[in-house]
């Protein structure tokens, strides 16, 4: 359709190819997934959308006995951003931001959908290594000059997850992936209206009997279009002209009202 669309397909194909190379020797199963859209467009009436992902488990050797033991985990990671989490403490009767932590380059959006609760899928080591579930996702913090993740029970870490979940930007659904047939599955990824713009990586893992069988990654893009894109770009790149335009808009609105409601 357009250059970006073709680029997206080529890019997805490359990622798909890389995925095959990584897992092909390990097992006979392969994963094929398809997303309802590769470009989520933010227009003036955007209030969020649902992304639908379909997938199929392709098994060359058709071992039907194994098919019942498949589990799927779909993880969607939004563009990385750096966040500051602050904790309020009581000082002289007032609630004041005191302690703070910096989360370095963590996903601004994170959704984990699986066919079974993450804890039932495999050993804690496997879950941690494959970053399955919000609790197991790496969230590096800046600690002095070093970057490191901390224990899952860390108050700042749990608070960060809680705040992001309340904002609808982090999302976990232990039964969010449904099998339509033993090898065909689908899932719905909710994207809130406040979803940040950028590239979202979608990783699909096929897990069976506590082991990773296959992995497939694809990506989608969330972009502002038309008027919204122009406004955001102008505000960022031409601050003075943008400010002047807003000021003139205020004057024009005020003048218009003065003459519309004039009584003398």
């Amino acid at each position: 359709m357009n250059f970006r669309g073709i680029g997206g397909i080529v890019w997805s194909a490359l990622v798909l190819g890389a995925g095959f190379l990584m897992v092909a020797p390990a097992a006979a199963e392969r994963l094929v997934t398809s997303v309802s859209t590769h470009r989520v467009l933010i227009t003036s009436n955007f209030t969020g959308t649902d992304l639908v992902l379909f997938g199929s488990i392709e098994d060359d050797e058709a071992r039907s006995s194994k098919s019942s033991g498949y589990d799927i985990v779909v993880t969607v990671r939004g563009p990385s951003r750096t966040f500051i989490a602050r904790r309020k403490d009581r000082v002289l009767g007032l609630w004041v931001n005191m302690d703070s932590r910096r989360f370095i380059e963590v996903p601004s959006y994170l959704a984990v959908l699986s066919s079974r609760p993450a804890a039932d899928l495999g050993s804690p080591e496997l879950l941690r290594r494959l970053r399955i579930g919000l609790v197991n996702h790496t969230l590096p913090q800046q600690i002095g000059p070093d970057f490191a993740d901390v224990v899952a029970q860390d108050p700042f870490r749990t608070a960060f997850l809680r705040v992001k979940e309340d904002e609808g930007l982090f999302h976990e659904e232990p039964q969010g992936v449904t099998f339509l047939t033993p090898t065909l599955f689908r899932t719905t990824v909710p994207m809130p209206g406040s979803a940040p713009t950028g590239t979202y990586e979608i990783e699909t893992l096929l897990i069976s009997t506590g082991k990773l069988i296959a992995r497939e990654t694809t990506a989608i893009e969330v972009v502002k279009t038309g008027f919204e894109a122009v406004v955001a770009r102008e505000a960022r790149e031409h601050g003075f002209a943008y400010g002047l335009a807003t000021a003139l808009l205020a004057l024009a609105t005020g003048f218009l009202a003065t003459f519309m409601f004039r009584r003398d």
Partner: protein
Amino acid sequence: MSIYLPIAELPVNLFLILGLGIAVGFISGMFGVGGGFLMTPFLILVGIPPAIAVASVPSHMAAASLSGAISYWRKRLVDIGLGLVLLSGGILGTAFGVWFVAVLLRAGQFDLVVGLSYVILLGIVGGIMLAESIRAMVRAHHGAPPIVRRPGTHAWFHGLPVKLRFRQSRIYVSAIPVTLIGFGIGFFGAIMGVGGGFLLSPALIYLMRVPTTVSVATSLFLTLCTMLIATVLHAVENHTVDIMLALVLMVGGVIGAQFGARAGQAIRAEQLRLLLGLLVVGVAIRVAVDLVARPAELFTVVATELLK
């Protein structure tokens, strides 16, 4: 119906924001104030990031105050000389305030400083308004003539150099305290997201002994100028002006202001001041409760890109 805000990067209910613009516009038309002290906390309450609220409200106030400013201008009530001296301080104060907002955001103390500024400034001004209007009403009730304050008393700052004569205001004072007042209004206006009309007219009336009508006209004129400047400065310095949010607010604001102005003329001056005093003290108490009560969530998370 929702509308997506391109800078705040979130959808908001169009009618909620428009209604807010109309309501605050009504109040600003009725009392002759900018209404920023109501608008900014409300926007933050409905989920607009504070930095974006503070930067987008000034353009609404410029639009809402334009009608009044034109009308006062036609009646030749604006003291241009006084306005220009105040403005010179106001521009400096606004620029310093916009810069200070960025510093506070980085330090994570923006909410605290804004909250404290609201409680202290609104508490004092609202309290004075309440006391003064109640006294006036009691006096009127007893049939006593209203006290006509008149110059003659000399405050300490009358001894300062660089004296200027402001004919419209019938005062002869040093430019130094006038510039300082302008600076303070610009500074607090930028960090609180308010026009400062509720601070400036009392300061001109009680400190500078400027006649009430001239001080109201001049402060409205000054609000218009500083709010336009604040819009440009916020856009250049912090990139946090959301033009869609501003447009919806200003359209609501100018409509509300027209009706508010008519309603205001139907009420006696001291009753108007009493109502405004109650409103101002009410906002101060609301903000104070937020500072003192234990918040439901002790943690806040903010993206560093919003802090530059």
